[in-house]
């Protein structure tokens, strides 16, 4: 007796590609993220019509247009609010939010905090290039102190933030760091992030060749190295040891814990609210407004 032939994959990475040509500059790190996303989606065999990719504004926020799923390139900083609506109202849809460092950490910073705190059922991929690319080269929350940009002629006077450190502090239950120049590593991390239940945050260092020069790619490549094998992903304390790094760029899963997601908790509320009764109807609600004495 021969075993049944193994089921062939239904989707290959190319199936997730639209015919829209990316607007990104040649050499942009976001190409690596996009390719990695196609591969990760194929590895997980995500159903295109049951997947939604949502973004805000910025170079990287153009990404939903290039993915053959339901997609929404919204307004600056608001990817996560839109993703919240999709994820909560349609728990059957896999929701991926994407964007850049300005979009997610500056104008959208408040939403980042609260989406992480809620353990929203969303995978959030942040393409961090340490600069505002679409507006052509202004300082961003992740631009290193002292760097010259179009709005820091005398060097950036402000300290930068580490997005992973923020995500862990805000309550994200899965946090990883990738380098888009490492395609294999990025695919692996996107797969893990997509598999996580709850808010998964992946910061991908994604160089901007146009506004940060060739040096950024070279420097990141030289600094990138995997997290040590024995890293305890369940410990915030251990994870924080690999934040605010200057001389190295540690990639991998920094933090991974299990906790009920927002949808898990909302499901529990629905059960509690109904207390075993059938769904309530509007006439029944209206009746509670009749004086009963």
């Amino acid at each position, binding site marked *: 007796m021969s075993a049944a032939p193994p089921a062939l994959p239904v989707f290959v990475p190319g199936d997730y590609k639209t015919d829209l040509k990316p607007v990104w500059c040649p050499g942009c790190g976001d190409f690596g993220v996009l390719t990695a996303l196609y591969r990760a989606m194929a590895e997980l065999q995500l159903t295109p019509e049951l997947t939604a990719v949502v973004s805000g504004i910025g170079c990287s926020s153009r990404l939903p247009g290039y993915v053959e799923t339901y997609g*929404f390139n919204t*307004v600056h900083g608001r990817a996560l609010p839109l993703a919240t609506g999709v994820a909560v109202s349609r728990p059957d849809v896999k929701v991926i939010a994407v964007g850049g460092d300005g979009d997610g950490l500056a104008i959208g910073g408040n939403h980042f905090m609260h989406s992480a705190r809620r353990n929203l059922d969303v995978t959030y991929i942040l393409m961090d290039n340490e600069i505002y690319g679409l507006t052509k080269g202004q300082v961003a929350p992740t631009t290193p102190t002292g760097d010259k940009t179009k709005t820091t002629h005398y060097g950036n006077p402000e300290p930068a933030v580490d997005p992973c450190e923020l995500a862990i502090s805000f309550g994200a239950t899965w946090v990883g760091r990738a380098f888009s120049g490492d395609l294999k590593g990025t695919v692996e991390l996107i797969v893990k992030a997509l598999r996580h239940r709850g808010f998964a945050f992946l910061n991908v260092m994604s160089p901007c060749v146009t506004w940060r020069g060739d040096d950024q790619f070279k420097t990141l490549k030289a600094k990138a190295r995997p997290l040590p094998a024995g890293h305890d992903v369940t410990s915030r304390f251990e994870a924080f040891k690999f934040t605010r790094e200057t001389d190295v760029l540690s990639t991998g899963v920094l933090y991974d814990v299990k906790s009920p997601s927002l949808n898990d908790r909302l499901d529990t509320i629905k059960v509690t609210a109904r207390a075993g009764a059938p769904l*309530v109807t509007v006439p029944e609600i209206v009746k509670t407004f009749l004086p009963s004495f």
Partner: protein
Amino acid sequence: MSRRDLTIAMVGAGGDGIVTMGDILSQAGARNGLNVIKTEAYGPQIRGGESSCVVRLSPSAIYEQGDAVDVLVVFSWADFGRFKGEVQPAPNAVVLFDEADPVARTREDLGIGADGHWLAVPFSKLAGDAGAKGSKNVVGLGVLTALFGLAEETIRRAVVKRFGRKKAAVGELALKAYEAGLVHGGTLPPMPERGLTFTPGPAKLLMSGNEASAIGALHAGCRFFAGYPITPSTEILQFAEEWLPKMGGSVVQTEDELSAIGAVVGASFAGVKSMTATSGPGLSLMTEMLGLASMAEVPCVVVDVQRGGPSTGLPTKSEQSDLWQAVFAGHGDAPRVVIAASDVEDCFHTTVEAFNIAEEFQVPVIVLTDQSIGQRRETLDPTRLVHEVVDRAVPTAEDLVEYKRYRDTPDGYSPMSVPGQKGGIYQTNGLEHDEFGRPASMAHVHETMNAKRYRKLKPIRDKYQRARRYGPAKADLGIVCWGSSKGAVKEAVLMAEERGEKVAAFIPQMIFPFPVKALEEFLASVKRVLVIEISYAAQFYKYLRTFTTLPENTIIFKRSGGKNLTISEVDDQIRKFLSPDRKKGVA
């Protein structure tokens, strides 16, 4: 003249139970099928502090809170002083005050004439004697029942229900206080001519405008609500949070209004009917997302319960000054729909209609209500809360062949697929886009797509020419107003009719796109036009002039909010221009 209705105002300090007293009076009225309007006002304290409550009861239809108070109950004169100009007894009112109040007032202070009654009542003493020191309010209910022919047994049951729900003994003490009030009321000078005569009828619903808005949303099929607390709209969020899970829906209290409407647009994109509710400052924050909803053609509903502005303004008080914001706020050419609710029942209907329009035409719809109707409680006939529900058109198999999400159709709206629909996949954005949703910044595409989005307004205008008209077909004076002004204006028009004066009123429910034709017909049917609104800048008057010509001698009656439009204010305006006295040159 027989008593058409009775308006009772109660004022006291925190802890005097003013709100409970008003609740019981209005619930008992609703139980007996009377028409009731109840309003409350508070001091700025978070908890405690002075409060006032006005309850109007009538066997016949009423449309606005009574502004000339027939009966005034004062537990504390010091607190009464804090509602200066807001609670105004009629010159012939019956004033009942606590004889133990250390502050003294005279009938002259309140302008109570010889035909009024000025009565010191031992509210505190009777409550203490009954063994329930804090039950002045229940004693008051007893006195009011005895004096004004209220339904004694119904109120007794309401008192037991209210106070006996946790401990039967507390209910018994409250009953003793009620009986003491009844007995004392019997010792006061009888005034049967002031009593309310009525035959009890079937019970009515007692509901606030905010509750009616929320119920309208649930009726329309809303299953996702995101909101951020803001006075005076918060009850809608609270109501949704309590009931939506029981209907299988979800609520998220977001971190701000930007996120609230963002989540609503996201959920609607995902195919679920969604809504948020806010007040002026919140609507300001939501403006950018209204532009996205307009551009990406995503249905969404926003209820704006207006309050006094700008900025923090008067958070607990009403104004009609978000009109321009609702219609015009935003960058770019962004079509949206604005509807105004005029009373509690209308909050239900306008919200359902907002969903119908949003879903059918894929536009953001703003419902303007305000604090005065959002937070007042009114009786409703339970059979009136019905309204047709329209659902979103989903693409057919034919539409899905080379599916164009933004197909340029004759009416401007195109079938919208939702996640889960195979073959309906599309990527959309806030960028200008082609029929497939792909970014396109060419001038001709922008022109075509702007035209497509604006074209939707025509079928909306045709289908929803919503406006109300009261009074004779031809009138000497024609009042044009909107939203919550309807109540006072309608009552004043009815009063003018009783006097034989020809006064008509035009009140649009649809604010944008405006029912211009109906307005112009109205203007042609009246000799003189009076525009009434609660906006210092006369937003409505100026708005009307953007699409029609008003006669040069149009009269404008406008003022700031903080106090609701009263029947007597409208009546004064009518009399000023139409009374025979004026014609004789006496006034």
